[in-house]
Structures are given as structure tokens and as C-alpha cells.
């Protein structure tokens, strides 16, 4: 179906970067193998700070794998092997001396399915600050919880029931609780792995709004299945296909003026 372009490993095409934002995350030749299978091949790209970068592509294209490289979540899978270089603020992520614990405190992550811990709403948000020892006193912790919930736009809804279990909330609320939990440790980068795929349209809209607000303070990388969502919320877009980064550039450019035939075919819905 998509054979009207050369088969032999064409290079990634980069749009000329139009954004003025500084670079937060830079990757170079990142490859991931699961067992013997190559899941991600030679991904090189630069992700700006204070902006939303969307990763799009058909299922199994490696976009989630790429996301899990940034906070080294692939370490938790026994068979995964990561090579190449990822730098956050020019600090190597894959270095031997880098502690994933510290790294993950800097890089928050939100998952496809809302996964609040089996604890109260308060304890869910306080979890990060507690384990990292970010609050000296109860008052400080209360403050962190409150501001995180406010930032996640959930405070108004849960202020009077902070000690109810987190699982008692609705799906959209749970996902915002998870976002609040992630921003409670004040990370620099937030990764979102299809954050809206388990939610209804209204909750999705609420989360998208939130993502847009969060752009002010964080560098966000979001994996999404929905091209419309990518177009709505992101400033930069990366298109993955069969484990390779095909094209990367400002979202507008990618959607209006793709350089690669495969990108064109994907965004026009000819495969996916």
C-alpha cells in the first residue's frame, strides 16, 4: 500500500526548526532491542523545552518504546537493551553513574490507563515528595499536594475529600490525579503515554486543556494515537513507522506539508 517510496532505509527527514525554544532533550542514534527483536532503530531528535512534542505513528511503531527510554522505564523489563545517547540538558541519561531514581524524579510519566495507587487522594499526590524527602513538615507537604492538585485542575473537585481512596474517582479525574502525582515532585520533563485513550471525549478535552496549560512550565512528550489530538495540543511532532523516526518538525509543517510520502499517507488516513 505504501510502496511508492524507496524501500532501502531512507534517512529521517527533519523540517527546519522554526521554534525559538531551547532544547531540553536530545537523543542520538537510540535503538532498543527486546530480546533479539529490534523495536526502535537509530532515533535522533531534539525536543524543545516548554513545549509539547507529540509522537505519532501506527501501533507497534516504537513510539511508546521511545518514550520509555527517556526515563529509563525500559530498565524494568529484563530483556530490553537500549543503546545510543539521550541527554537532558546535556546530561547523559544512559550513563552508568546515572541513578534511575534521580532521573525519574526529574522526568515524570503518565500512563495510558489511569493507575492511582490504592491509597487516598492525598497520599497519591504526596507519594513522590514523601519517598524523595521533598517536604520537611506536614504543612509543606500539604502545600505541595494542594498546589499540585490545583495545577492539575483537580483541587476544586476533591478538596473536600482528600482522604477518600484515589480509585473512587472517575476515569478522567483519576488521570488528572496521576498528572498531579507526577508534577508533585516538580519534574522537568513529563512523558505521557496515550493519556486519553481510556477516557471519554469530555474528559479528553479536559486533559488536553491541562496539557496546554502545562506547556508553560514543562517539556512535555506525548504519545498519541489520535492525529487530531497531536494537531490540537503539540508544537512539535515526530512520526514513527516500523521502529524508525520518519519525520520530525513543527506540528503545522508536518500536518500541512509533510516531506515523506509515508507521513503523508498516514496523516491522510491511508494506513494506520
Amino acid at each position, binding site marked *: 500500500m505504501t510502496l511508492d517510496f524507496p524501500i532501502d532505509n531512507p534517512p529521517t527527514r527533519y523540517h527546519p526548526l522554526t521554534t525559538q525554544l531551547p532544547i531540553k532533550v536530545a537523543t542520538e542514534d537510540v535503538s532498543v532491542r527486546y530480546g533479539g527483536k529490534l523495536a526502535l532503530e537509530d532515533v535522533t531528535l531534539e525536543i524543545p523545552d516548554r513545549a509539547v512534542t507529540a509522537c505519532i505513528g501506527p501501533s507497534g511503531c516504537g513510539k511508546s518504546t521511545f518514550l520509555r527510554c527517556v526515563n529509563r522505564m525500559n530498565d524494568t523489563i529484563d530483556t530490553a537493551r537500549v543503546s545510543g545517547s539521550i541527554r537532558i540538558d546535556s546530561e547523559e541519561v544512559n550513563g552508568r553513574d546515572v541513578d534511575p*531514581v534521580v532521573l525519574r*524524579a*526529574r522526568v515524570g510519566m503518565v500512563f495510558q490507563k489511569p493507575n492511582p495507587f490504592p491509597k487516598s487522594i492525598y497520599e497519591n499526590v504526596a507519594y513522590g515528595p514523601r519517598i524523595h524527602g*521533598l517536604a520537611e513538615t506536614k504543612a509543606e507537604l500539604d502545600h505541595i499536594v494542594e498546589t499540585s492538585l490545583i495545577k492539575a485542575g483537580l483541587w476544586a473537585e476533591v478538596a473536600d475529600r482528600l482522604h477518600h481512596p484515589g480509585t473512587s474517582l472517575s476515569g478522567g479525574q483519576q488521570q488528572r490525579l496521576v498528572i498531579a502525582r507526577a508534577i508533585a515532585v*516538580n519534574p*522537568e520533563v513529563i512523558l505521557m503515554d496515550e493519556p486519553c485513550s481510556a477516557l471519554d471525549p469530555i474528559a479528553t478535552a479536559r486533559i488536553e486543556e491541562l496539557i496546554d496549560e502545562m506547556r508553560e512550565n514543562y517539556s512535555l512528550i506525548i504519545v498519541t494515537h489520535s492525529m487530531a489530538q497531536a494537531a490540537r495540543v503539540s508544537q512539535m511532532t515526530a512520526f514513527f513507522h516500523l521502529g524508525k523516526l520518519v519525520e520530525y518538525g513543527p506540528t503545522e509543517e508536518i500536518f500541512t506539508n509533510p516531506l515523506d510520502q509515508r507521513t503523508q499517507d498516514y496523516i491522510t488516513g491511508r494506513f494506520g
Partner: protein
Amino acid sequence: MNNAPTIRDAVQARLAKRHRAEMRFQFYGLAAISAAVLFLAVLLGSIIIQSIPAFTAHRLVLDVEIRPEIADPRGDGSEASLRRGSYNTLIQNSLRDQFPEAGSVGELRELFGLYSAVNAARLLNEVVNNPEVLGETLPFSLPISDDADLYLKGLTTDEEFLPGAAPLTLEPGMDDALTLRSQTGAPVFDVFLDLVQARQDAALDQARIRAERTAARAAEELDTDTRNSLEAEAQRARDLVQALQEARSDTGPVRLNSQTASLMLRAQGGVLRINALARDGLSAEGTWLVGPDTASQTAQDWSLWVIETPSIARRITDRQIVWARTLKERGLIKNGLNTTLFTNADSREPELAGVAGALAGSILTMVITMLLAVPIGVGAAIYLEEFAPKNRLTDFIEVNINNLAAVPSIVFGLLGLAVFINLFGFPRSAPLVGGMVLALMTLPTVIISARAALKAVPPSIREAALGVGASRTQAVFHHVLPLAMPGILTGSIIGLAQALGETAPLLMIGMVAFIADPPTLGLSGFTEPATVMPVQIYIWSSSAERAFEARTAAAILALLTLLVSFNAVAIYLRRRFERRW
């Protein structure tokens, strides 16, 4: 907003502590696993070590003369007459020929205590089966008594052999006693005297400490009764100290008794027991236990044989020790594989006890359990999984089965006693009832595993069968059941293995009886009294004889081997037929 570096610092600051906590936690986990594995190793290791002495046994081979006047009292060679013969006397005579010195009734009783009279029954059968041996001399092999066996294995008695230092003169004295004197004037017995002395000193120290301790406790005790008894005990200890001190300062000859070590002296091919020694270590007084080859008055080449364990602390007498060792040296007692353990049924004499009876009982019991538990369990599983409507009753049955799986096994024993034995009047102690009780106990395990196996067969198989017009019953019996069979078999075997190791419920229905004859491995065996392997282990472990300890461990190994092979079959089946959908 950019307080990121401070957060990083905060995280970094606690990092080392958190990683230490992580290491600690991991260590606890590893320690828990190691503890469990260690327990297993110690359990198996201690049982294997304890069982080793049971796998060999000393047997005595005697040339027994079948004297017609004893074996055939009526003299007509008929079976009835042969059965009235006194075969134990034949064995006794043969043994007496070895030790003509043993004369008194007491000595003979000790001599015949080297084997169990039950062995004569085997000789009887041999003669009854071959009456032509009358008047001939037969080699007859019999296991020696457990105490002699343990002694020869070096497990119950500490002993030491010391070469004689200088030539001795042997002077006949009062009665049978001899006086032994060092020819050179060297104190040849002082080694032994030192030992006696050291023993006495140790006993003295112990008694002193005991006296002080009890006195101190008595002083602190508030309760009058307890104080009085403590004071009495302290007084007894003080008396003992007194007596021991007196014995030490005594200058007369050292008399050996049941509280002290025993001393033997081997000279001129015989064995003397020393009864008393002079304090200077120059002379001693003794009697022959095993007569000498020559009647010479001097002994150049002799040795001391110190039996350090006092005779009060062992179950074998000095004479029996000397006789047993002499028989061994004469080549009449040999150590060999203990086949009795696997060919005999239970016996009161450890050397004649074996697991064959219990093994037969276990087989019979397991046959009943298998015949009941597997078909009923599989049937119930099929009904619940494939046919049962989802209603209250089915839920109740499910809860019931899950609960039965966790009911203590002894309760099933009570059920068996009350219902099978007292209500239905089934025979006590019979494999039939044991098998039924164990079947009820195993049923939940079989049902649960069979249901899991049926559940694992994908619905598409059923739908395919129903789709071509099979009835529900046909779909289940022709298609689902064969596919679930390996899983069902595995679960059933594991359930049966559990039943094979079960003891408590069988105690309730009287399978704990002493069974000297193994049950017949046939239809009638199901109602004869029997016992099973785990119960045999329980019976032996509560026996007083020390020789049963090793035999119990050996029986445990036999049981564990059975269980391991059961489970190995289950694992093989699982591997061989495992199928993933």
C-alpha cells in the same frame, strides 16, 4: 518555577540512605529464601544421616545341628511332630558351643540375648519344608539383636584399645579369679586409672556445682514447698560430693562397677574382665569371659580394651560386648545390606522390623482412594464446569468444596470413625475405610484441579462440537474431556500423593494397630487390618528402642522416594502434554 536544582539536591541527599534501605530489603528477601532452602536441607540431611545405620545390619551365621530328639519330639518325622520341636534350643546349643565358659543361668540369658527367639520360627519352617535335614548341620543366618548391632556399628558405646606396656603374670586366685601382675614393675594399668580418676573428678565438680546452684535457688525461692524440695535436692548433692570425696581419698583397690567404665584385657587369645585394680597400677584382678587358648602363666602380648561408656548407660552388657566382638572376629557375625527392612512387616524387635507390611497397606489404601476420588472428583468437576446452572445451589457447592479443601484432615478421620465404622459397621483398621476417608479428603483437590483443566479448554472447542450437532454430553465427553485429561491426571496424582503422606485421619480409624503380618495384596486384603507407611513411621518414632530411630528415618526416605516418584510422574505428564491455547 525553576527550583529544579534544589529538588535534585534533595533527592540526591537521601539517595544513599534509600539505596541502603533497598539493599536491606533485598537482603531480607534473600535471607527468607535461604532460610526456607536451609530448612529443607537440614530436614533432608538430618533424616539421611539418621537413616544410614538402618541400611546395613549385622547377621550371625551359626552352624546349627538339627538334632532329631529336639526337632522331632515324637520321632516320626511328621509335620505335626516337627512343629512341636524346640528350635530355639537348637540355636542356643550352637551358640553355647562358641562360648563354653558361659555357665550360669544369668550368663546364658545374656548370651541368648544376642538374638531374638522369634528367629526360631524361620528355622522351624525351613525344617518343616525339608524334613530330610534332620540330623544334619545347617548354616543358619539370623539378624543379631538391635543393641548388639548398634554396638558393633560403634553408635552406642565408646571404647578404646591400648597395647599392653610390659609382660604380665597371671596367677590363679579365689574362685575363677586371676591376679594379674606387671612383671617389670612398670605401672601397666595407670592409663585406665587416670581415666577413672578424671571421671571421678568431673563427677565431683558437677555435683559441687549442682549443690551450690540448688542451694542458691532454694535461698531465693519464696514458695515453701518448692524451697523444701530444693533444699532436699541440695542436701542430696552435698551427700554425693561427700561420698565422691571419700572415694577419691580411698587407698584400697579401685573396684569397677556398673557406674564406672569397664576394662577388658585380651591375652592368650581370650578376654578377661578386670574387676579391681590396685592404686599403684601394678596389679589387677580379673576373670575370663572368653577362655584362653593356652594355660600359660605369663602373657607377653596383651592389650587393654577400655569400654568407656559405663554399663548402666548402655543397653548391652560387658559380656555381650565381648561375645559379639569375639563372634565378629571369628567371622560368624558379618555386616551386610539390611534386606529385612524391605522384606519384613512390623515387629517388636527392631532387627526384624520392616516396611513391607506398611507398603502393602499403603498400596491397598491408595487403590481405594484412587478408585473413589478420581471418578467422583472428575464427575463433579464436569458437572460444575459444564452442566451446572449458575444458581444458589451451585454457588453453595463451590463454597463447600473450597472449604472442604481447607478442613483439617483429622476431622475427616472423625467423620470416618463416626460414619463408616460406627454407623455402617465397616471393619476397623482396614484399607477399605482408610481409602474411603482419604478419598473424601482428596476429593476437593481433584475437583479443583479438574475444573481448572476443563476451564483451560477454550470454548471454541465446545462451540465447534455443538455446531456440528453434537449434544452437550457428547461435546464434553468426546472433545473437552480428552483435551483436559493431562491436566486432570496431574491434579489427581498430586492429590493422591498428598493422601499417601497423610497420617492423622488414619489414626482415628484404627490403622495404628501393630500389624505383624502384611495384608494380602488381593480382594480380601481390603478388609484385613493394615497400616500404612506414614503411620508406620509414627509408630516407630514413638518406640523406645534406639534402633528404631534409624529405621524410622529409613522408612521416611522410602516414603519420600515414593512421593517424589509420584510427583515426577505428574511433572512428566504436565510437560509431555502441556498445551497452550
